[in-house]
């Protein structure tokens, strides 16, 4: 069974140009696979602006958790510590701060995994024989065979034209 086509480019600029062309031609089911972050990929594949907002929301949640924990426990077991006021808020700053950071850190890490669909047991592109190259020094595009515009010979010719080495990726 054919999973799709893997195209290898030797420079990120070629990858970006190829992605633009493929997008313009109406390809939808494709992935760019790169060894490191590529500048300008957002313009082609769309960026994800959610992360700062999610981090902010998690931060607000963390502040709430921290203050709730301390105010609740203090009121539940009132104790005069060295004549300090019962709800002496300056003393609550360190714990609130740490819990805020802890909430953001753990939350954003889990959210990153969720957004990226990880952990992932298997991915068709990994079946490519030369797959390791896109983790090393080459920039790959994986075009799924299920793409409505996909046509084995036509797509292969197009990718060649864009300057890629092309590999067919099949099961097994």
């Amino acid at each position, binding site marked *: 069974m054919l999973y799709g086509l893997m195209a290898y480019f030797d*420079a990120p600029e070629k990858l970006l140009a190829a992605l633009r062309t493929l997008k313009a031609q109406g390809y939808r089911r494709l*992935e*760019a*696979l*790169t*060894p*490191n*972050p*590529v500048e300008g*990929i*957002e313009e082609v*594949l*769309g*960026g*994800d602006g959610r*992360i*700062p907002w999610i*981090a902010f929301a998690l931060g607000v949640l963390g502040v709430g958790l921290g203050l709730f*924990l*301390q105010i609740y*426990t*203090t009121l*539940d*077991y009132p*104790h005069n*510590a*060295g004549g*300090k006021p019962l709800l*002496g808020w300056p*003393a*609550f700053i*360190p*714990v609130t*701060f*740490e*819990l805020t*950071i*802890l909430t*953001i*850190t*753990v939350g*954003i*890490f889990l959210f*990153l*995994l969720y*957004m*990226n669909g*990880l*952990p*992932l047991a*298997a*991915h068709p592109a*990994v079946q490519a024989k030369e*797959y*390791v190259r*896109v*983790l*090393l*020094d080459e920039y*790959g595009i994986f075009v799924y065979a299920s793409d409505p515009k996909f046509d084995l010979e036509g797509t292969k010719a197009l990718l060649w034209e864009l300057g890629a080495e092309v590999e067919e990726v099949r099961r097994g």
Partner: protein
Amino acid sequence: MAHKEPHPDHDLIQGEWTEKTLVEKLLEPVEKPAPRPWRVVVAVGAALTLAWLYAIFVTFVKGLGTWGINQPVAWGFDIVHFVWWIGIGHAGTLISAILVLMRQNWRDSLNRVTEAMTFFAILAAATYPLIHMGRPQLFYWVMPYPTHMALWPQYKSPLSWDVLAIMTYITISTLFLYLGLIPDLALLRERSRGFRRKLYGWLSLGWTGNAVHWQRYRAVYVLLAGLATPVVISVHSVVSMDFAYGLVPGWHLTVFPPFFAAGAIYSGFAMALTLIIPLRKWYRLEGVITERHLDWMAKVTLASGLGVAYIYLLEIFIAWYAGEPAEWAQQLWRMTGPYAPYYWAMMLINVVLLQTLWFPRFRRNIAWLFVFSILANVGMWLERFVIVVISLSHDFLPGNFQLYYPTWVDWTLFLGTIGFFLFGLSLFIRIFPPIAVAEMVHLFHRLRKH
């Protein structure tokens, strides 16, 4: 575009490389047989770790009477070493986090090994509060959980801030280290077979290098760096407040948070140098950990060390200027009492010998840098000893004055954590690449191809 200026950081990667040869080089510690010094370090580390476990066993079975602590020095080697190890941990997060935010390219060669250093240093540090509690099986009492006694931790106390600060710090530095590892684990997965392939496969979580994933990954990485930076500063500040909240002469100072933070950076960078200089030599990494890297680390060591030295002098001034008799007596006890050799050795290393790092001749002398980095760690150990033991041994009442005598259990616990630290680190660099491969390749690409 007739003439292209070389990138200002061009010589951060020295020698002739392609991406492929660079990756081969960086993965050598994991993929090639280990060099002989590695075996020696692992063997010594494992032996000391076993001794450490035995000392913990003795502590648990016989109790804290096996330690040298008593009144008035109720905080002995355990707290000295807790603070010392936590301080050492800080440089790793600083190198990774602050230098990411400042877009310093030279961090890329150093961050992985220093983050691993942080990880094992925090683990070593965290064992001390656990085992010195007297009833370690009840450690969970410091956590807020609903008990049948209807008691809660006291959140106006720095000791309970400490618990949360340390736990947050362990969590954030572990996640940061792991996040940085994920792309390298994917690369290792594709390059290995059998059990290793499975292990790396599980750990890499199925990372494929999808460009959209990379964008989110970078965003989260920089965000975590931004969050780790204040945590580092807060952790050692909170540790210092454990002391500064007390009325003991020599502790009750508002300058303690910056004092401890500066000391942490200083000892952390010193420990990073102690580890990186042999690593670079044994694995022949001179091309990626260049003399320029070492020079910059020495400069950071100098800057933070000067902060420490300044506060030593400030402490004397405050004790004199405040006119508080117990404070001034404490200061004189440090300088002239039975512990004076420790105090003056600390001054010699952290104030006098530190000044050599002003001079390029000393900074570029790798042998001196290595010797100094070890001395700086000794100096910082002495500083913790001065703060904890010397302050406690001389408080307000002459009837209380007692000296502190550590026992063999104290010493074994100390040497044991050093062994555990070395053992953990050497296993780490055998399983995970000690230099962040994906980041180095990215840096190489930016320096050589743009």
